[in-house]
């Protein structure tokens, strides 16, 4: 009997639970409603139900991996601790002054994010460190004690400490914590030199504050959850999904809870990576379209692209710059306001627009029959025959075709002088255009071209729109995995134990002291080894990936380049400069021989082994697909409705093939091939669609 891994993904509506046998590939899943106030309640209930239903012995569960939206929600809803900030004298307002930049130059009424610590809880202490770590004035400990007493009187529960240049000399911050803890027993203290020891005081301060703000909440939540799992007789350790696709222990998560902010979405990206890997695809564009948004993420050479920065709690969800900046490693995803619920309208210019406004789930699209009158993407998909009104969510919810027709006819077709089918096609086409555009600009920003990529499509609306979006992106292959609804929980099980460490130490190249840099790496790797050992990873299974953020002097942009493993010497530094120039050339087409080069931030990611994807390869169980029904769908090449075969996912056995145009229905979504293409079912149950005339593979 094999050991099992348990994945728990808490989303806004549902908590998904998945039990999986990594060796045998057996998967058991369960879904319960999320309990937003105390999310562990739903987890406990769901796990109990799943165990009871399947009769699985809880002792077989060797690991529990959890993805959570607790951190992101606490910041959005401002439910964190009453938090204070202590800075070097003269700089407490950095948190509010921010970057002095407007995120929209035409919107006079833009709101800026409110800092998590109000000005009256921001205190200063006399101390000062210069670049390079030289102490200009020592820490005034008497002042710290006074501040501590004032904060106690204000009823503060947590304090973030961010002193200038502390990443070069952490001693003042460390001493500050000692004094605060002496004065305020049990108080939560987060130090910028531990949370993000990197150059740039505003982003470091903002990240440290957010960490302190959610620390208490996360610690007590994880404590409760771990206890409940034990009570159920589950011996396996609890791990948490990090924003960058690694997992960590409860202890690490409690120290750096801000790293969990994208814990939920990271699961989806890891699942897409895993599915791609199993299908022997290393370059993947993950396309997740749900009710209100569409997310895309690029997986290059088997690894999701990682961004160094994230924005929490944006004032406007889709406006870059409108959130609180966090300097943490996070899977790089672009999200736009395009989903099944996105509202279509005719704008001032007489042109059709779709989103970012959404009808959400209440009242929802017109076809939900809950009083929604605005035409949405789902209404359009229904009229085009892409959704079956009797089989939405597996038939749990009947859709009202007439209501959809009315909404589209009144608000789109009539004003534009079109018939209702062409208006519906316009909505489908317009939203696809937006999603394809955002994906390709994202790829361009990251120096990637999507032409040889495969798309993994999921989310309720993903497979409905994937075919046309893939054509716009010139992607040649679409992979539609089964059970798209619990994909994130599945992704949790695919992640390795890992953690990224960083430290800024700006040094010129050439001219850096290799011994000093070597010591920085040694220190971070030692921390990594300890952290992973504590998580149960065998010492010889730990791998380290070193990188450095390098720039030309005078530029604000860093380029992340690898640093070779082993002893750091002059050759390491010479190679670092060479790889910087190489990467710069790849990204920007040239190098700047006259400019001096500065290495700024040194990073190490310590990882344990990743669970291997089970590759079923080509399995031939059936060669033809069993037809379930036929229905009319809109086929743009023929500019009209056409009778097409409809298949049921559960009828499609590995090896089955069929040609587009066609429809595949399953409970959670519908795969639409609204044109030519050849679909095959692979050994994992994925429907793999090869597009005719797509990009080079």
């Amino acid at each position, binding site marked *: 009997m094999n050991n099992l891994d348990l994945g728990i993904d808490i989303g806004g509506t549902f908590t998904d639970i998945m039990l999986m046998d990594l060796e045998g590939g057996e998967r058991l899943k369960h879904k319960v409603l999320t309990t937003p106030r105390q999310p562990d309640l739903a987890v406990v209930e769901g796990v109990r139900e799943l165990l009871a239903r399947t009769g699985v012995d809880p002792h077989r569960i060797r690991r529990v991996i959890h993805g959570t939206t607790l951190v992101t929600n606490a910041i959005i809803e401002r439910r964190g601790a009453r938090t204070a900030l202590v800075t070097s*004298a*003269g*700089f*407490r*307002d*950095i948190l*509010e*002054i921010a970057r*002095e*930049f*407007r995120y929209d*130059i*035409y*919107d*006079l*009424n833009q*709101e*800026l994010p409110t800092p998590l610590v*109000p*000005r*009256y809880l921001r205190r200063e202490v006399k101390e000062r460190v*210069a*670049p390079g770590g030289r102490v*200009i004035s020592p820490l005034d400990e008497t002042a710290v004690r006074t501040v501590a007493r004032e904060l106690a009187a204000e009823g503060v529960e947590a304090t973030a400490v961010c002193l200038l240049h502390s990443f070069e000399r952490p001693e003042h911050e460390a001493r500050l914590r000692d004094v605060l803890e002496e004065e305020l027993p049990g108080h939560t203290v987060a130090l910028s030199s531990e949370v993000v020891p990197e*150059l*740039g*005081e505003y982003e470091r301060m903002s990240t440290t504050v957010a960490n302190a703000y959610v620390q208490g909440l996360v610690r007590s939540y994880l404590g409760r959850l771990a206890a409940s799992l034990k009570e159920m007789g589950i011996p396996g350790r609890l791990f948490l999904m990090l924003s960058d696709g690694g997992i960590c222990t409860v202890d690490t998560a409690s120290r750096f809870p801000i790293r969990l902010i994208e814990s939920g979405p990271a699961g989806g990206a890891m699942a897409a990576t895993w599915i791609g890997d199993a299908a022997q695809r290393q370059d993947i564009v993950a396309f997740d379209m749900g009710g209100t948004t569409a997310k895309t993420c690029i997986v290059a050479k088997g690894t999701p692209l990682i961004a160094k920065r994230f924005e929490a709690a944006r004032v406007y969800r889709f406006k870059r710059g409108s959130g609180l900046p966090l300097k943490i490693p996070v899977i790089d995803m672009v999200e736009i306001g395009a989903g099944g619920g996105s509202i279509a309208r005719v704008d*001032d*210019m*007489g*042109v*059709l627009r779709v989103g970012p406004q959404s009808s959400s789930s209440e009242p929802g699209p017109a076809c939900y029959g809950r009083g929604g009158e605005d035409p949405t993407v789902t209404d359009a998909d229904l009229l085009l025959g892409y959704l079956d009104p009797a089989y939405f969510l597996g038939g749990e919810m009947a859709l009202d075709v007439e209501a959809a027709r009315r909404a589209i006819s009144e608000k789109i077709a009539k004003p534009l*002088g*079109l018939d209702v089918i*062409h208006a519906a*096609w*316009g909505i489908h*086409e*317009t939203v696809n*255009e*937006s999603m394809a*555009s955002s994906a*390709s*600009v994202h790829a*361009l*920003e990251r*120096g990637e071209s999507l032409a040889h990529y495969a798309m993994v499509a999921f989310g309720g609306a993903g497979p409905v729109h994937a075919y046309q979006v893939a054509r716009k992106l010139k992607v040649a292959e679409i992979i539609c995995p089964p059970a798209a609804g619990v994909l994130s929980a599945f992704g949790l099980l695919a992640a390795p134990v890992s953690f990224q460490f960083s430290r800024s130490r*700006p040094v010129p190249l050439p001219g850096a002291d290799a011994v000093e840099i070597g010591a920085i790496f040694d220190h971070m790797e030692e921390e990594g080894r300890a952290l992973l050992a504590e998580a149960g990873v065998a010492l010889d299974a730990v791998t380290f990936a070193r990188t450095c953020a390098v720039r*030309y*002097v*005078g530029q*604000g*942009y860093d380029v992340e380049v690898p640093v070779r493993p082993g002893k750091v010497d002059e050759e390491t530094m010479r190679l670092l400069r060479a790889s910087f120039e190489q990467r710069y050339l790849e990204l*920007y*087409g*040239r190098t*700047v*021989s006259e*400019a*001096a080069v500065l290495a700024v931030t040194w990073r190490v990611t310590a990882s344990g082994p990743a669970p291997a994807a089970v590759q079923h390869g080509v399995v031939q169980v059936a060669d033809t697909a069993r037809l379930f029904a036929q229905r009319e769908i809109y086929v743009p090449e023929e500019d009209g409705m056409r009778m097409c075969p409809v298949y049921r996912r559960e009828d499609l056995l590995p090896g089955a093939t069929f040609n587009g145009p066609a429809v595949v229905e399953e409970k959670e979504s519908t795969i639409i091939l609204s044109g030519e293409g050849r679909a095959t079912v692979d050994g994992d149950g994925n429907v793999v669609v090869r597009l005719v005339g797509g990009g080079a593979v």
Partner: protein
Amino acid sequence: MSQTQIDPIRLGVLWQRTVFLMDEVAQTLIQTSFSSVIRENFDFACVLFDAKGRLMAQSSVSIPAFCGTVQKTLRYLLADFPSETLSPGDVLLTNDPDAGTGHLNDLTFAMPIFRGGDIVGYAANVAHQTDIGGAVSPLAREIFEEGLQIPPVKILADWHDNRDVFAFLRRNVRDPAGTLGDVRAQIAALDTQRRKTLALLDEQGLDSLDDLADQIIERSAEAMRRKIRELLPDGVYDAEAFTDGFEDPLRLKLRITVKDGEVICDYTGSSPQIDKPVNCVLNYTRAYTAYAFKCLLDPELPNNDGSFDPIKVIAPEGSIVNPRPPAAVWSRHITGTYLPSVVFGALSGVLPDRVIADCGSPSWGAYFQAKTERGSRLFLYFMAGGHGGRPGLDGPSCLSFPTNVQNTSVEETENALPVLVCEKELLPDTGGPGHQRGGLGQRVTFEVQQEGVSVAFRHERVRFAPRGFLGGMDGARGANLLNGEPVPAKSRLNLRRGDRLTFLTPGGGGMGDPTERSRADLAQDVRNGYVDQDSAAKYYGYHGEEQGR
């Protein structure tokens, strides 16, 4: 209208596609340019013209300086190099301030897009070059002191470099690698744009851009006219404002005439041009005037020839807002970025729920120069004033407006320059009192750590405070101090080791009657030290916590 050609769905997709295409081109320019002004502050625009030279799409990341300006530059270039004389692979260039965006640093490049033997459109871009030679002086008297002037030239002919033009460029700038590198980046972006435009035409089976341009331009102009009719009653609206100027203040006088969906903005009565580099060419005057209307009427309106067609801007020749050559123009933003607030002032009576009070702008910036082993290093440190109060919302503290410049972190600054930043903090009580309070300015103090450092700046709102609107009161004026003593707002100073240089940026003006401000907001203002107790009593009639709770 040639609506028969393109159905509305296709139009929507094609329109979206052209703007997206320009955003892709802009991304290419951002990634290949070396200047941080381009990469971080987006001081550039990429534009697409149809065969008739009408601007039909513009990249979305851009600053207001390029609202509706490149059309004039293209006309200027084509006047010297008529379209029938152009061949594939020709690239035209100028930095004429009058035809462009008002100073020599902005280089405009344009390339015809040929398909078969015909020109189907033009690719163009304009971007700010940090170094174009010249004295970089806040006291230049004529344009000849301000750097290299480039008349219309063909910098590439038939894909080949015009070596003479490159040689002139190289000889006239301090940092040829940087400037020529960015020139190459701009040219490369044009070629990217040309290829993508042709691919779009092929993919969509279009013979030309003209039908699409007709639709985009006509619909945008019609939308702007509709907005004007809807929001601005016909009539005449006057405003006047003063900038600090030099010995004397400068007057900005504006009369807006609204008639049936059209607006005429007439700056007659504004000060004559002066022999200092703050003269603002008409094209730049037009950009910041049009920008104000876009913000007020519909921030979502696209940037193209149609949108700004209903807005005419006129100004007497020889005035500060339409100078004659050889006026000095380097710091034209000192005049031009005042213009949105002049427009807001004129329309505050009819659009009280849309205008904002004066901001603590034009933007403040210190140009440090320090001697290093590698020669001398130039370092810009920007610091914003408070934003004006807004209808329903306070003005944020320290926010760039109307241009958009990020600050540099204190830690970065101290790593790059031999200075210590002693403080960077909000200045209490500098926001103009109002129902919606103006944002606070900031105090930034630098302590010089070694000899050989100098600084130049050209700050405004030291003589005249940012004005409050509709009953709101003025924000605080700014100040510049050396070792605690005031120095002129337009200065160039040689500093000694240990000198302390302090800037106090202006606060934003207030919006609406301060006595109507919510007591809960005032309690927070006092508690957070944004407003001190005495000012709360004096301007807001607020006497303490008991009322606020």
